[in-house]
Each structure stands twice: as C-alpha cells, then as structure tokens.
C-alpha cells in the first residue's frame, strides 16, 4: 500500500484546466516535494488530495481510503499546513490547538497534553494564552504547523511552510520537518524554494501548466540535464561574453564580474580559457566548475512559452 496513490487526477474551473490528468504515488515514510511556478497547479492538487476540492476526473487514495468516497476516514489520517495562515486569530494559541484536537476526536486529557507539548516544541508555550492576532508572522506560521501536527498525522501536507519567514523560523520548521519524517511521517511538501526541496525531499515532482513534467530523486533529475554543467571564470580585466564562442559551449552568461559558460564538457573548456588568458595577458582570478542544480532542472522544465 502507498501513502498516496493518484490516478488521472484532473480539476477544471469553468472550463479552465488547473490540474491536467496527473498520476503519481508517494511511498509510506517518503518526503515528497511538489515544485512548480505560480499557477502550476500545486495548491489545487493539494486541495484535492486533502478533500477541500472535488476532482473533475480521476481518483486519489490516501492509504486505503478514496478521498472522494471516504473523505472523513482519509482526513483523519492527515495533517495540513496550508499556504495561507488560517488559525483563528481571536482564539489563543492553545485554543486553536485544542479546537483542532476536538475536530480530530482526541480525548480531552490527551489533547491538552499534546497541545502543551507542541507549544513547547515550537517555542510558543510562554504565549499559549495570547490571542494569535498578537503573533508575528513567524509565530503564526509556527502555530499553523503545530495545528497540522496535533493529530499525529501519518501523512502531513505542507503548502509553502517557510514562505516569507525569518531565518530562525525557517530553520526551526525545516528541522522539525526532517525530524517528523525520520519518525515515519510521510510528508508532501509544496515549495517555491528549490534549495529547500533539494535539501529535504527524497523525491520531487515538477509541475507546469497543471501537468507533472518530471518526477524523480533530485540527484537523478540533476543528472538528466548535464548540459547545464557550467564553468565559471573571472578575469582581472573586463571581458565580454562574445569573446568566448568556443566549440562545445552552448551559452555564455555574465554573472556579476564573472562569466558562466554552459557546456557538457567542462574538462575541454578549461584549457581553452587558460590559453585565452595567456594569449591575451588577462589573468584568471577564479575558475570553478559548477554542477547543475535543481533550479536549473526546474527552469529548464518549466520555461513558460515552451509548453
């Protein structure tokens, strides 16, 4: 059995297709990332998987439960941290957690205990009786993540959990994501932050125009686009990209005071750069080979206009 099994899932709003026949599975215990530009269909996908929206076509199973046919049983297994903070601002921090505990059917004694433990874990225990209205953005996001964990979910959906937060809150949330995943919680993480997905996720799916355009481990995806390996070089004197039309270089970009030469064969390009330096008397200050990163994969696969 898989944690999530999605088949042919589609969502249309007034004839506009937001999610277009996607299929994928998430294994139990996996940390799965959903990447994509704005409007790619990530949040709509999450909303269908969490039973907030009904799919137009297709099915999604959460564990053994079909989210359309057995929504309450499926929802009981999951925790949700939505993109926009949605705690009750006129309830206290502990009031929000206790409400969620009650909605998940947790007994009173246990829910008080869990709420207090989570407040301690997220550094909010001292402010547990303060209304969420008075919290900073980082504190609000922490309480939202704590609400998502209140029912000890087997499956946790995190939609942009660190978006726009201060460094301290980002670090805390990332650390906790990793810890909960290590304890066996399956996590689906939606993010714009490619570095975050690269650091945290076991596998990522890249969405564009409502479709999944790639799905694999980050390392494999990076390897699949070797052409984005590049050589970064800086010279003492100013140079122009047009001077480096070497064979095997697909593109030359100016990045600050450096030039980045994209090539599949960096080993052949480096001697050419050294030769250029010697013949022109323009000394090399720095020279690096850069492997493709997930951002390159993302940009290559989601380049708009190349649908």
């Amino acid at each position, binding site marked *: 059995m898989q944690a999530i099994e999605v088949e042919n899932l589609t969502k249309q709003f007034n004839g506009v297709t937001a999610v277009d026949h996607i299929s994928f599975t998430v294994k139990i215990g996996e940390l799965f990332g959903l990447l994509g530009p704005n409007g790619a269909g990530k949040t709509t996908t999450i909303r269908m998987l969490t*039973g907030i*929206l009904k799919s137009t076509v297709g099915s999604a199973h959460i564990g053994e439960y079909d989210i359309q046919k057995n929504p309450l049983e499926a929802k009981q297994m999951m925790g*949700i941290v*939505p993109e926009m903070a*949605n705690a009750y*601002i006129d309830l206290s921090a502990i009031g929000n957690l206790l409400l969620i505990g*009650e909605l998940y*059917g947790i007994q009173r004694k246990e829910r008080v205990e869990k709420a207090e433990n989570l407040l301690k874990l997220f550094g909010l225990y001292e402010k547990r009786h303060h209304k969420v209205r008075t919290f900073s953005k980082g504190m609000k996001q922490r309480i939202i993540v704590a609400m998502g964990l209140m029912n000890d979910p087997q499956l946790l959906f995190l939609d942009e959990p660190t978006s726009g937060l201060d460094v301290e809150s980002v670090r805390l949330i990332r650390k906790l994501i990793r810890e909960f995943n290590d304890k066996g919680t399956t996590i689906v993480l939606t993010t714009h932050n490619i570095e975050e997905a690269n650091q945290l996720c076991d596998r990522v799916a890249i969405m564009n125009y409502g479709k999944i355009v790639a799905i694999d481990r980050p390392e494999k995806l990076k390897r699949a686009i070797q052409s984005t390996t590049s050589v970064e070089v800086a010279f003492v004197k100013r140079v122009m990209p047009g001077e480096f039309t070497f064979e095997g270089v697909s593109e030359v970009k100016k990045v600050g005071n450096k030039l980045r030469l994209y090539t599949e064969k960096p080993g052949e390009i480096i001697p050419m750069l050294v030769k250029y330096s010697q013949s022109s008397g323009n000394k090399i200050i720095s020279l690096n080979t850069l492997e493709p990163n997930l951002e390159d994969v993302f940009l290559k696969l989601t380049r708009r206009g190349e649908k």
Partner: protein
Amino acid sequence: MNIFDQFKRSWAITKKDLSIFYLKGPVVISGLLMPSFLFFAFVLGRKFSPGFLIPGLLGMALFVTVSSIGPVIAPWETRMRTFERLISAPIALWAIILGDIIASLLFGLFITLFIVLVSIVLLGTEIISLALIVGTILAAFCFSSLGLLISAPATDNPSNIMMLSSLIKFPLIFISGIFVPIGEMGSWKIISYISPLTYYTDLARFSVGGTNYFNPAVSLLVLLGFGILFFFFAVKWHQKSLDKRF
C-alpha cells in the same frame, strides 16, 4: 466514523463560534437592544395590552438575534481561510453547519430568556408554558437554519450576506403577525402562512393571553418542518457552493 463522533465535533464548532462571534460585550448588548428598539419604535404611543406586546417582542427578539450572526460566519471564515481548515478536518459539512446553528440557537435562547425574565419582573406577566419552551427551541432551530441557508452563496464578503439577510428577514417580520394580529390581516393573512415567525408569534400569544389563530400543535409541527427543511437545504447549498469558496 459514527454519527455520535460527528455530533461531538459539531459541539466543538459551537464552542468556537460562541467564543469568537457571540460572547462579546457589544454583540450581547446589540442582541438585546436591536429587537427591543425595533419593536418599541413601532408600538410606543399605541394602546396594546401586555398579552399582545410581549409575544411580539419575544418573536422579534428570537428571530432577530438568532439570525443576526449566523449568516455572516461562513463568509467571514471564508475570508480568514479558517473555513478551509474546517473542511480539511474530519468533520462532515452537516456537522459544521449544525455546530453553527446550535451556537446561534443558544445565543438567541439566552437573549429571549432575558426578555422573558424582564417581562415577568416588570409586567408580572405569566408567560412560561411547556408549549412556549418547546416552541422557542424549535423556532430558534428554525430561524438559525434559515440564517445558515442565507449564508450558502460562496462569498467572502460578510456585507453581501448581510444585505441578502436583511432583504429576507425584514419582510418576514412585517407579515408574521407581530405588529398586526393574523386575524386582522384580512385576505393578506395567506402571505403570513409562509413565514415560520408567524407560527412562533402565534404560539407565544397562546402562552401569554390564550389567544391564538393556529392550533399550538400545528404551530409546533410547522416550526419543526420549516427547521428540517431549512437545515436540509442549508447543507445541500453549502455543499454546492463549496468549490467556489476556495
């Protein structure tokens, strides 16, 4: 997941609503003042007996208070995105709506009880009867369900729903025998039959002065019927508009 579990979760919604929307000083005070002002603005300077006045005030107070806050909860929660939070939790939509209904029912009963007590103390009117107690609870359920039905359109703007609510509520107040007894409405009385408030006001008149137009049992049954009907359509229409909320 059994139904008893869902009722328990419904109660969590009720407690949340009471805490966030109802148990606030200004809300309670305006809940007491608004129906009283409306009522006295109409009756002051005219000669009415307590047997006519008190039932009218009761009907007005219950109807206005029960259906005042309930309709704006859904658009407010849609705007704050907490509605999304509730929908993603393992609680059925009918249980969420029932929780909202019970919160507004309890608020209305509290305000009505206050008016009853003031009436007893100031006017010495004996108005407590079993029919009135059962009728008040049924009417509160009915008016509250109507409020939730009004809030079904998918909007995140509470003022849109307030406007819709006023458009429906105020005409009902004038056709329900509060200001003019049904028996004196002539051929217009047929319109009063479509308003659940008519049956509650008549039931209150029966309890206070023993003057009634409908049989009290009929009034109770009609209130129950309206309540079930409004609840059913509230759930159905909220379900239908759910996709447009997010």
